[in-house]
């Protein structure tokens, strides 16, 4: 293993280890989305009787949401941890070594992606346990994991960017509700074509989060939907590229040595 790969691996492992050592950072991303899934599945079950609703199982329909919620938690955790490293001077300690600065970002995001995949495994396992059968089959599950990885990476990079620019865990946490607003004005609870209020349908259509949810949803309940996959992966990739570029720039500024 090259020195760079070794450093990234150890920094990613540190990211995972310290996430695991903060039970709140593990429990909330796992439990909160599942609780919301249970509440919504109970309360909104009647939606499945709407003409044109894509499935008879509301759990299958709603299971897409935790994947995106989990990524949002990853954003906050990645950002907060990195901000803490800045506040405690740990980033300066890393800066005092000959390693390349980008290893810090790669390691941190490696940890975020690992946690994202673990979360996706839990969400999918819960879904399978309550009877959801992914319409796209085993290959679709692999694609689903690939998508979860990409979304975790993109949102994690956004969190890292916020941390590197502000250097404050509180500032990173303050942007979390803003991300949640995007989630709630999306198609998380009802397909866009069935939203009756025109203004809400327009907002959901303009909201990129809708397409991330619909990408996961297509794999779970529709099967292979090329348009949904292209939009979902395209938007996730665009977010990831932009967020990584911003985070890399912020890291260079922060670690100006």
């Amino acid at each position, binding site marked *: 293993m090259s020195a760079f790969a070794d450093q990234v691996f150890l920094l990613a492992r540190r990211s995972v280890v310290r996430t695991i050592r903060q039970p709140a950072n593990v429990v909330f991303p796992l439990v909160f989305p599942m609780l919301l899934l249970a509440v919504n599945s109970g309360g909104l079950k009647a939606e499945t009787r709407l003409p044109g609703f894509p499935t008879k199982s509301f759990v299958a329909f709603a299971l897409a949401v935790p994947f995106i919620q989990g990524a949002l938690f990853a954003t906050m955790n990645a950002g907060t941890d990195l901000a803490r490293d800045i506040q*405690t001077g740990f980033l*300066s300690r890393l800066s*005092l070594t*000959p*390693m390349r600065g980008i290893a810090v970002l790669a390691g941190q995001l490696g940890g975020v992606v690992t946690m994202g995949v673990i979360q996706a495994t839990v969400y999918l396992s819960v879904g399978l346990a309550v009877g959801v059968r992914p319409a796209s089959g085993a290959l679709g599950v692999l694609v689903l994991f690939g998508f979860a990885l990409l979304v975790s990476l993109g949102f994690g990079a956004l969190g890292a960017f916020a941390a590197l620019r502000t250097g404050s865990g509180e500032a990173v946490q303050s942007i979390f509700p803003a991300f949640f607003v995007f989630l709630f004005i999306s198609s998380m609870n009802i397909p866009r074509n069935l939203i009756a209020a025109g203004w809400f349908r327009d907002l959901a259509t303009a909201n990129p989060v809708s397409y991330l949810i619909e990408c996961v949803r297509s794999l779970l309940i529709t099967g292979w939907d090329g348009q949904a996959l292209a939009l979902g992966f395209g938007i996730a990739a665009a977010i990831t590229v932009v967020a990584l570029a911003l985070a890399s720039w912020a890291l260079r500024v922060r670690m100006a040595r």
Partner: protein
Amino acid sequence: MDAIEAEHLVREFKNGPRAVDRIDLAVRSGEIYGFLGPNGAGKSTTVHMLTTLLPPTAGTARVAGYDVVHEGPQVRMRIGAALQEAALDPLLTGREHLRLQASLQAMPRNERRARAGELLARVGLSEAADRKVGGYSGGMKRRLDLALALVHRPPVLFLDEPTTGLDIQSRTALWGEVGRLAREEGVTVFLTTQYLEEADVLADRVGIIDHGRIVAEGTPAELKAQVGRPSVEAVPADPADRKLVGEILARFGEPITSAKGVAVRLREGESDLAGIVRALDADELKVEHLQLHQPSLDDVFLAKTGRSLEGEAPEEEQSARPGLAMEPA
């Protein structure tokens, strides 16, 4: 070749004062150089520039033979640094810190475990090695910080106020280790401090910095000699003897003020002390207290800046730390 060289080094901050103002440094290999100064004098800013954490606004600096601006990675491979606050992850154990640091210093994988164990033993943390650092005391964190700075056996070590906030036992232990590193391993140590005693005990040479400028430099003895000769203070056992004791002391030097008794600045230096004792004895004058005062580094600081260093609070030059609010001009 000097281990640390700086020429006309300057650091300015936007909307702030010139934190470091054209300082020159030449620290020889294997030397312990004490950088002494009060709060905000520019000590930490200088360390941040020399360790490549902060680019200088002007001037040049070379550490271990490499330019801090243009050859940063080479400098970082050859330095160890323990900055003002022990920058540790409270969620990792001491051993995990050392292994991570060894990896980031590109130490071969098969050496990391042994080196971590060796350093943990050296700083007395073997028993606490697998405990999370969040539960360590201040002294333990400082010792771990020092161990981290030494992982890759750097020839140059920067210690930024390493004993601030430590109890006397921890402080003495750290002094012992720093002294050993210089004497036995030939490590060059650049040590910032505002403790006069620390500079006096540890440093081969001392640079005194104030308002970003070096106002005095030399060995502690040289600096004290610049200030003047030692003085003797005597407190008679019987206050009625004060005048007689004063007359005897006056034979050995010029009287100076004393709050408790009488005092003189010795004409010949400390060799006069025996003569004073004999003269007092010959006149059967009893003294309750007789003390020789050597000029201290605080006297030097007072002479050079018009202010005293004693009683200064620990330095917090946070604005100079990378990652915090102040931006380069």
